[in-house]
C-alpha cells in the first residue's frame, strides 16, 4: 500500500475530530490530515483523490483554510467517472466562489460536460454553473445552456432553466435569446419544468421590457388556464402539501401573473376570475394555504384596479392581522405597508389592531408595526396616535426605545398641528426617553420654543415641573436649563399664564436651585454643565438678588480640570463681579432663532470636521459668522494647530447655545492663535480654547471695552460678522512698541494693491531668535475712506502667530492716516525655513464690503 496514502476514511476522520475535547486537539488532528492530503496532492495520487477532497471539504466547513485543494477540484472534474465529477463539482461550489480566477480554468471542462452523453453528468455541470458561474463563464456557455432548454429529459430542462436565470442576471444582454425557448417551457406539463420555466420567465420580464411585452401578449391566457387547471385539479399524492396540489407552483404562477398584469388593464382583466377563485377557495388553516393567499393578495394589490377584488384582498388582510400565529401577523403587517399606497382608507380602519402590534412581545412584529404606524399618521389622527405611542414608550423594552423615540419625534415634527402640542409631546418624550433623543431633535425643540414667544412662560414652567419629577434624562435637563436661563423671569413672575395651567409658585432661589443641581449632578456631562453655567450667568442678571449666590456656584468651577468649564467659570465670574454694567446687555433675551436656517442646517448634516493635528479642513466654530468663515477656512488651512470645532460640525444651534464639545485634551496643545477674532470667540464662549493666557487677557479686553458701548451693543445682533470685528477693533490699547534691541531687519512691503499698502517692520528680542515682532502699517492708497477695517493672517504649521489688536478700524483716504497692528511670529524652524504668511483684509467702502487676500513671500530670509 502506498505509504503516503491518507489511510483514514472520511468517517474515521470525522469521528476523530468529534472525539477531540479541546480546540488544540482538534487543530492537531486537522493539521495531520491536511499534511497527509497535501502530500497526496503533491504525489498526484489518483486513488484517494475523491476521499481526500471529501475530507478537505469537511475541514473547510470547520473553518480552516483549504485553498491548496482548489486544483484538486479541477482535476476531479476533468476525470471521466461520475463519482469523481460529482465530488469535484461539489468541491468547486464549496471551496471557490465566483470571484476567484481559478474558476475560469473550469470553463472548458464544464463545456465538455454540458455536451456529455451521460445526462446525469450534464445535470452536474448545469447545477455547478447555475450556482457559481461568473459573468465571463456565463457569456461563454450561454449557447450550450440555451440548447439544453430543449433537451429530451425534463430534469435537465429544469436545471437548464435555473442556470439560465443566473446567466441573464449576470449578463442581461443575453436575455432576448431566451424568450422563445421559455415560451415553449410555459406550455409544459412537468411540474419541475413549469416551476423553473415560470421563474425564468419572471426574471426575464424584470430584466427585459421586450420580453415583458412579448409574454404579456402571448402567454397570459395560457398561464391563467394553467393556474385554473391546477386549482381545480384532483388529489395528486406526489405534489400534495396540506391538501393543496403543489403550492409552490401556485405561488410562482401568481407571481408571474403579477408581473404581467401590473400596469396593463387587459392582462389584469384576464386574470380577475382566477384570482377571485384562489382568494375565496383556498383553505387557510395551514401554512401552504396562507402562503398562497399572501401571494394572491400581493398580486391583487399590484395589478390594475378591480373594486371587488380589492375588497376581497383587504378582508384577507384583516383576517391575517387578527390571526394568533405570529408568522401570519408579521406577513399581514408587510402586506398592509404595501396596501397603503393602494387603499389608505382601508388600512386606517385597522389602525387599532396595528397599534396593538406595536406592543407585541415579538421584536420583528413590533418593528414592522411601528413602521406601518408611521406611514399611517396624518393630520387627523396624529394626536391620538402619538398619545398611544408615547404611553407605550413608558413600558417598552430598552432596545426598542431607541427606534420608538426616533419615530415619535419624527411624527411630532412632521405633523404637529400647533406649537403648544408640539412642546407638550416633546416634553413627554424627553421625560420618558430623553437619553435616546438625538441632538438634532432637542435642538429643534429649542428653536421652536424660542419662536413661540407666547408660550415661553408656559414652557419654562412645564419644564420646571418636569425637572422636579425626573432629572435623569440628559436632554431634558439641557433643554430645561436653557429655558430657565432664558425665561427665568417668566417662571418666577408666572407671566403669560395659559388657562390650562395650574398656578405654581417658584421663587428665584428655587430656579437657581434647579440649575445648581444640574451642575452638581454626577451624571451631567460637559454639555449640560456648560449650559448650566451660562444659564446661571443669565439668571444672575435676571435675578439680581441671587447674584451673590450664583457667583459662589460659578466660582466653584474655577479649578475644574475641564478647560471649558474652567474658562466659563472664570469669565462669568469676572462678568458678575466687575462688569455689572454690561452684564444685562450681554445676556439679554436671545433673538428668535430662524427656523428655516436651523432646520436646513439640520437636514444637510455637514461632515464631521474635527481637526486633528494633521490639519484637516478646519471649520471655524464661529457659528454666527458663517458667511465669512468659509474663506477663512482656506486661509486657516495653513495653520493646522487649530483647535477642534464642535464635534457635530454642522450644528450651529449648538454653537449658538454656547455649547462647545471640544474635548479638553485638544486645548492642551499650544494653539496658533489666529487673527484677533479668536479672542472674541472666547468671549462668546463659542469654540476653541487657546492657551490659558488668552482667557486671562479677556477681562482686560473687556475692561478696555467699557468705553465702547456701541461696539458692545453689536453683541445682541449676533449676525453680522463685521460688527464683531467692530468690538475687537474698538479696543485701543497701544500696540506694544517693538523692542529696539537685537539685530535690525529691513522692512518690507508685505502687500500692495491698487488701494492698500501694508508695510512690515521687524525686530527681535536678543536671545530669542525664533520670535519676531512685526509692526504692520496699513496705508490707504485710494481716495475713499475705509471703515470697519479688519486684518487677519494665517501661517503654516511650523509658525506660531499672535496678533494684537489694531490701532483703529477706520483708514482715512489717500494716506492721510494709518492703522498699525502688531504681530508676533515664532518660527520653530528658525534658520531652516523662512516665514511665510497669508493675509486677508476686509473693509467697507461706502457701506459695501471689500475683501483683499494675498500671500507674503518676501520676508527676510533669516527671520
Amino acid at each position, binding site marked *: 500500500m502506498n505509504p503516503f496514502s491518507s489511510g483514514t476514511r472520511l468517517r474515521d476522520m470525522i469521528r476523530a475530530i468529534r472525539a477531540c475535547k479541546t480546540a488544540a486537539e482538534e487543530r492537531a488532528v486537522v493539521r495531520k490530515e491536511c499534511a497527509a492530503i497535501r502530500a497526496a496532492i503533491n504525489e498526484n495520487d489518483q486513488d484517494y483523490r475523491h476521499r481526500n477532497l471529501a475530507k478537505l471539504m469537511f475541514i473547510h*466547513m470547520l473553518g480552516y483554510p483549504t485553498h491548496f485543494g482548489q486544483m484538486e477540484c479541477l482535476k476531479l472534474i476533468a476525470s471521466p*467517472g461520475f*463519482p469523481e465529477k460529482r465530488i469535484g463539482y461539489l468541491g468547486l461550489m464549496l471551496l471557490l466562489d465566483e470571484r476567484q480566477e481559478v474558476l475560469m480554468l473550469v470553463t472548458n471542462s464544464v463545456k465538455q460536460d454540458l455536451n456529455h452523453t451521460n445526462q446525469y453528468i450534464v445535470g452536474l455541470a448545469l447545477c455547478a454553473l447555475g450556482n457559481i458561474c461568473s459573468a465571463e463563464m456565463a457569456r461563454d456557455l450561454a449557447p450550450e445552456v440555451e440548447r439544453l432548454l430543449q433537451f429530451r429529459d425534463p430534469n435537465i430542462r429544469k436545471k437548464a432553466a435555473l442556470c439560465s436565470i443566473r446567466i441573464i442576471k449576470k449578463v442581461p444582454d443575453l436575455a432576448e435569446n431566451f424568450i422563445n425557448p421559455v415560451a415553449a417551457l410555459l406550455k409544459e406539463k412537468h411540474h*419541475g419544468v413549469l416551476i423553473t420555466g415560470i*421563474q425564468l420567465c419572471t426574471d426575464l420580464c424584470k430584466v427585459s421590457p421586450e420580453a415583458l411585452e412579448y409574454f404579456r401578449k402571448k402567454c397570459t391566457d395560457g398561464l391563467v388556464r394553467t393556474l385554473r387547471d391546477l386549482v381545480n385539479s384532483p388529489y395528486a399524492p406526489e405534489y400534495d402539501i396540506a391538501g393543496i396540489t403543489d403550492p409552490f407552483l401556485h*405561488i410562482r404562477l401568481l407571481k408571474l401573473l403579477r408581473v404581467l398584469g401590473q400596469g396593463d388593464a387587459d392582462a389584469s382583466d384576464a386574470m380577475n376570475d382566477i384570482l377571485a377563485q384562489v382568494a375565496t377557495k383556498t383553505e387557510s388553516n395551514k*401554512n*401552504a394555504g396562507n402562503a398562497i393567499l399572501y*401571494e394572491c393578495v400581493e398580486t391583487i394589490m399590484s395589478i390594475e384596479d378591480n373594486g371587488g377584488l380589492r375588497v376581497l384582498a383587504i378582508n384577507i388582510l384583516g383576517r391575517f392581522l387578527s390571526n394568533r400565529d405570529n408568522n401570519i401577523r408579521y406577513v399581514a403587517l408587510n402586506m398592509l405597508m404595501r396596501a397603503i399606497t393602494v387603499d389608505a382608507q382601508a388600512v386606517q380602519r385597522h389602525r387599532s389592531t396595528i397599534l396593538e402590534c406595536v406592543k407585541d412581545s*415579538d421584536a420583528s412584529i413590533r418593528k414592522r408595526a411601528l413602521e406601518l404606524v408611521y406611514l399611517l399618521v396624518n393630520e387627523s389622527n396624529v394626536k391620538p396616535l402619538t398619545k398611544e405611542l408615547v404611553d407605550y414608550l413608558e413600558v417598552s423594552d430598552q432596545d426598542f426605545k431607541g427606534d420608538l423615540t426616533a419615530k415619535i419625534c419624527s411624527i411630532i415634527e412632521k405633523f404637529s398641528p400647533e406649537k403648544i402640542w408640539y412642546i407638550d409631546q416633546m416634553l413627554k418624550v424627553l421625560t420618558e426617553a430623553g437619553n435616546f433623543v438625538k441632538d438634532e431633535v432637542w435642538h429643534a425643540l429649542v428653536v421652536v420654543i424660542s419662536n413661540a414667544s407666547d408660550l415661553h412662560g408656559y414652557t419654562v414652567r412645564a419644564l420646571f415641573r418636569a425637572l422636579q419629577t425626573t432629572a435623569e434624562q440628559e436632554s431634558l435637563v439641557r433643554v430645561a436649563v436653557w429655558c430657565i436661563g432664558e425665561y427665568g423671569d417668566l417662571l418666577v413672575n408666572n407671566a403669560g399664564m395659559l388657562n390650562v395651567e395650574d398656578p405654581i409658585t417658584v421663587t428665584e432661589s428655587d430656579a437657581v436651585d434647579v440649575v445648581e443641581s444640574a451642575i452638581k449632578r454626577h451624571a451631567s456631562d460637559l454639555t449640560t454643565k456648560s449650559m448650566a453655567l451660562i444659564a446661571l450667568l443669565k439668571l444672575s442678571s435676571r435675578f439680581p438678588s441671587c447674584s451673590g449666590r450664583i457667583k459662589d456656584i460659578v466660582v466653584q468651577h474655577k479649578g475644574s480640570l475641564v478647560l471649558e468649564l474652567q474658562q466659563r467659570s472664570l469669565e462669568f465670574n469676572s462678568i458678575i463681579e466687575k462688569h455689572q454694567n454690561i452684564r444685562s446687555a450681554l445676556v439679554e433675551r436671545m433673538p428668535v432663532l430662524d427656523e428655516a436656517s436651523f432646520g436646513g442646517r439640520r437636514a444637510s448634516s455637514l461632515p464631521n470636521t474635527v481637526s486633528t493635528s494633521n490639519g484637516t479642513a478646519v471649520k471655524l466654530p464661529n457659528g454666527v459668522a458663517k458667511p465669512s468663515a468659509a474663506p477663512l477656512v482656506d486661509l486657516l488651512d495653513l495653520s493646522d494647530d487649530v483647535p477642534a470645532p464642535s464635534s457635530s460640525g454642522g450644528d450651529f444651534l449648538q454653537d449658538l447655545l454656547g455649547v462647545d464639545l471640544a474635548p479638553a485634551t485638544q486645548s492642551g496643545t499650544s494653539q496658533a492663535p489666529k487673527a484677533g477674532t479668536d479672542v472674541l470667540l472666547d468671549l462668546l464662549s463659542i469654540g476653541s480654547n487657546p492657551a490659558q493666557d488668552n482667557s486671562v487677557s479677556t477681562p482686560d479686553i473687556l475692561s478696555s471695552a467699557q468705553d465702547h458701548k456701541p461696539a458692545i451693543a453689536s453683541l445682541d445682533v449676533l449676525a453680522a460678522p463685521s460688527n464683531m470685528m467692530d468690538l475687537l477693533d474698538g479696543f485701543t490699547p497701544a500696540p506694544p512698541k517693538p523692542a529696539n534691541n537685537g539685530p535690525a531687519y529691513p522692512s518690507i512691503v508685505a502687500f500692495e494693491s491698487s488701494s492698500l499698502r501694508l508695510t512690515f517692520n521687524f525686530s527681535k528680542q536678543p536671545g530669542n531668535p525664533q520670535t519676531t515682532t512685526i509692526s504692520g502699517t496699513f496705508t490707504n492708497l485710494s481716495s475713499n475712506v475705509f471703515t470697519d477695517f479688519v486684518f487677519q493672517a494665517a501661517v503654516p504649521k511650523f509658525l506660531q502667530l499672535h496678533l494684537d489688536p489694531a490701532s483703529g478700524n477706520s483708514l482715512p483716504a489717500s494716506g492721510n492716516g494709518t492703522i498699525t497692528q502688531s504681530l508676533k511670529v515664532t518660527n520653530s524652524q528658525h534658520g531652516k525655513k523662512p516665514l511665510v504668511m497669508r493675509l486677508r483684509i476686509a473693509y467697507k467702502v461706502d457701506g459695501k464690503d471689500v475683501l483683499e487676500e494675498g500671500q507674503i513671500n518676501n520676508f527676510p530670509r533669516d527671520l
Partner: protein
Amino acid sequence: MIHFVLLISRQGKVRLTKWYSPYSQKERSKVIRELSGIVLNRGPKLCNFVEWRGHRVVYRRYAGLYFCMCIDEADNELEVLDIIHHFVEILDRYFGSVCELDLIFNFHKAYYILDEVLIAGEFQESSKRTIIRLLSTHDSMVEMAKEEATSIGNMIAQVTK
C-alpha cells in the same frame, strides 16, 4: 432569490452552508457568527422571520438544528418556510428518519440533496418522489463505478501476481 442556506446546531456548530450570492470567505464567517447569535437567541414563541442587514432570514428549528434561509424583501416568507420543510422531508426520506449525525457523517450527500432542491437560489422541484428517484439513480451509478474499479483492480492484481 435565496442568498444563502445555513444549518446550525443549537451549540452554534455549522452543519451545512450554501452560498448563492458572492460572499468572500471573511464575509461568510462574519455572517455565520452574526446570524448564529441572533437566531439561537430567539424565543420559541416568536415568529420565524428575522430582519437582518436589509434582508430577511427565515429560520425553522428541527430538534437540535436550525435551518436558516436568507431571502430578499420581495420574496414570500411563508413559502420559504415550506421550502425548508420540503428539504427536511426529503432528507428524512433519503436517510430514513434523519438525525443530526446523519448530516454530519454524510454531509456531502446532504449537499447533493440540497442541489436537487435549489439551484441559483431558486426552487427547483416540488415532487419529492422525483428527487428521491434521481438521487437513487446517482447512487447506483456510484455503486456501479465502484464495482468496476474493484473488479478491474482484481483483474490486474490477478494478472500481475
